């Protein structure tokens, strides 16, 4: 519904969508989550209107290139997507040389997602990015598609140890991306461990571990057997965890999981998130980001809010 005022102004044009986050101002609370759009080359940015988001999180980057998982890597599920990409990436040197300069030239606000198998690898990536003009590093501490000996994202002690190590090497604020696969009961423990370890912010949720079976072939669909579930189907789970995590820490929260509309963005903000991640939605609706921005303005205007920051945490009786 697009109501226009007598002078033709679109609804909500004067609503201020900017948010303060980690010492900078984002033009809106939408952050493009790491993964689906890789390193945000120009062709993808133009087709999916990604530059209209407040910030972009670049795909999980490791010290040296990772090949990723064997195919098939994708299967659609009811209102969702199961993926087992396996963090395929070309490594941090390639990122610095072939990717970040172009994003900087476009004036985009960039967060780099970091992956590793040991805390030392995470630190090496952080060190390598020390001279880069980026907003923050987001530590991917458990992707459901890569097996590690120590699951940093599932063990509060290990997580604090990781953060300690990485902070020694990083000049940028650290965001810890939490996994829902620890279960609702434990998410607050991991959030607190991130805060205690010196994280500047947390982001959640990463994907939910899932499986699909090919009945004709009598075996799993995905080459790596298990995958991570994203998309509208996961939203209620994500929202519950964001609510719980936001209540456990004072550091800002980036909430994500199944966000497809401006209304969804507002739900996450009202649950306590300061910014909201979007990953799968543009794959389904290439105009998702501008559509969300427009819908946020309309709803906030109807609610009588002048600034989006007014609604952060209101559902919990804060703000």
């Amino acid at each position, binding site marked *: 519904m697009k109501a226009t005022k007598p002078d033709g102004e679109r609804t909500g044009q004067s609503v201020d969508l900017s948010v303060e986050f980690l010492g900078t101002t984002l033009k809106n609370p939408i952050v493009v989550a790491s*993964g689906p759009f890789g*390193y945000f*080359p120009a062709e993808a940015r133009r087709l999916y209107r990604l530059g209209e988001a407040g910030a972009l999180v670049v795909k999980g980057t490791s010290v040296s290139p990772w*090949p990723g998982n064997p195919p098939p890597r994708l299967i659609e599920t*009811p209102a969702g997507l199961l993926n087992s990409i396996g963090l*395929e990436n070309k490594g941090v040197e390639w990122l610095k040389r072939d990717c970040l300069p172009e994003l900087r030239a476009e004036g985009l606000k960039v967060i780099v997602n970091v992956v590793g198998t040991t805390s030392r690898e995470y630190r090496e990536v952080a060190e390598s990015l020390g001279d880069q003009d980026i907003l923050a590093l987001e530590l991917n501490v458990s992707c459901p598609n890569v097996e590690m000996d120590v699951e940093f994202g599932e063990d509060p002690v290990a997580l604090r140890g990781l953060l300690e190590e990485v902070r020694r090497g990083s000049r940028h604020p650290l965001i810890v991306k939490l996994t829902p696969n620890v279960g609702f009961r434990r998410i607050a423990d991991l959030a607190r461990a991130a805060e205690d370890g010196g994280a500047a912010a947390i982001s959640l949720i990463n994907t939910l571990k899932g499986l699909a079976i090919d009945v004709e072939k009598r*075996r799993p669909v995905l080459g790596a057997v298990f995958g991570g579930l994203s*998309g509208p189907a996961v939203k209620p789970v994500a929202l519950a965890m964001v609510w719980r995590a936001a209540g456990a820490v004072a550091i800002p929260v980036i909430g994500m999981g199944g966000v497809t509309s401006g209304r969804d963005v507002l739900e996450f903000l009202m649950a306590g998130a300061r910014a909201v991640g979007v990953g799968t939605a543009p794959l389904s609706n*290439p*105009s998702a980001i501008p559509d969300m921005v427009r819908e946020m303005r309309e709803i906030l205007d109807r609610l009588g809010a002048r600034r989006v920051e007014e609604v952060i945490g209101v559902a919990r009786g804060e703000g």
Partner: protein
Amino acid sequence: MVTLNDGLFESAVERNEDLGGGHFKVRLRFPETAVPPKPGQFVLLKMPPSRWPGADPLLFRPFSVYSYRPGYVEVFYKVVGRFTRGLASLGPGDPVLLVGPLGNGFPPDLSRSGDFLILVAGGTGVAPLHFFAQSLMEGTVSGEGRGGRAVGQPVALLGGFSSAGIAAAAGDLRQLGVSVIVATEDGSLGLKGTVLDLLEECAEELGKTANRASRSAAGMEAGDPPVRAVVLAAGPPAVIRGAARVGQRFGWPVYVSVEQRMGCGVGVCRGCVVRRREERCNPGEPRFVSVCSDGPVFSADEVALEEEIPGPGARR
């Protein structure tokens, strides 16, 4: 005809032709101002939310371009699930979201003067090969890189279909001078069998006669090196695997159009990859290539065409 984002169009059905056996050919409006598709490229299709609200199905689906004229593209599809069932229900004027053209297309320099071109189509694999043959014979794409088909270059399309009705998908190529040879599973048209049966027969014959016929057709001298065929294959994995094996046996180059489930369609999500052959990977080079952006057309010796069997847990 509305351009939404770069490469994304709100298209509409012009006609949606039922060819029988669950096969359809749909003509979709395509802006004349957009980049025209090349043979081997594909488009992503989805029903718009106004027609199909909700999150199910979530993703666009890829379809090879069957033909292109200024103002429209044609796509050839089989009803295999709820998306294609929905597509089959559309009529003239119904809106469709379209992204394209995408992918690399067939390389322009894949054959030389005197080469036989054998196009091996399994079912809906006829789509990219039809566009290739149409463009080649009409002189809009080159088998040689210099514009226009080489004089005397024989082109044969071998098509394997489930029944006679959809074999019509390639019929119009005859008028352009392509030899169209059909096999049907039910024997209702042409050979009763598969396209690989056809390829076996044709390859044997070609192996025997290539030297004589092609030489004189291409005006070659006795001392010139032997001519060869170039094979283009598209369709189910068994068809492209079979075509690759035949090509290897006769020493002919083979190009395949690969299918894979897709996410972003532009090479960034890495969801649609296939494995490169071990021997083609130098240290530091990627082990996987994306079907949407590095492909869908590959040289058969570039990619591993055997099926991947899921392993226990993730591998890195």
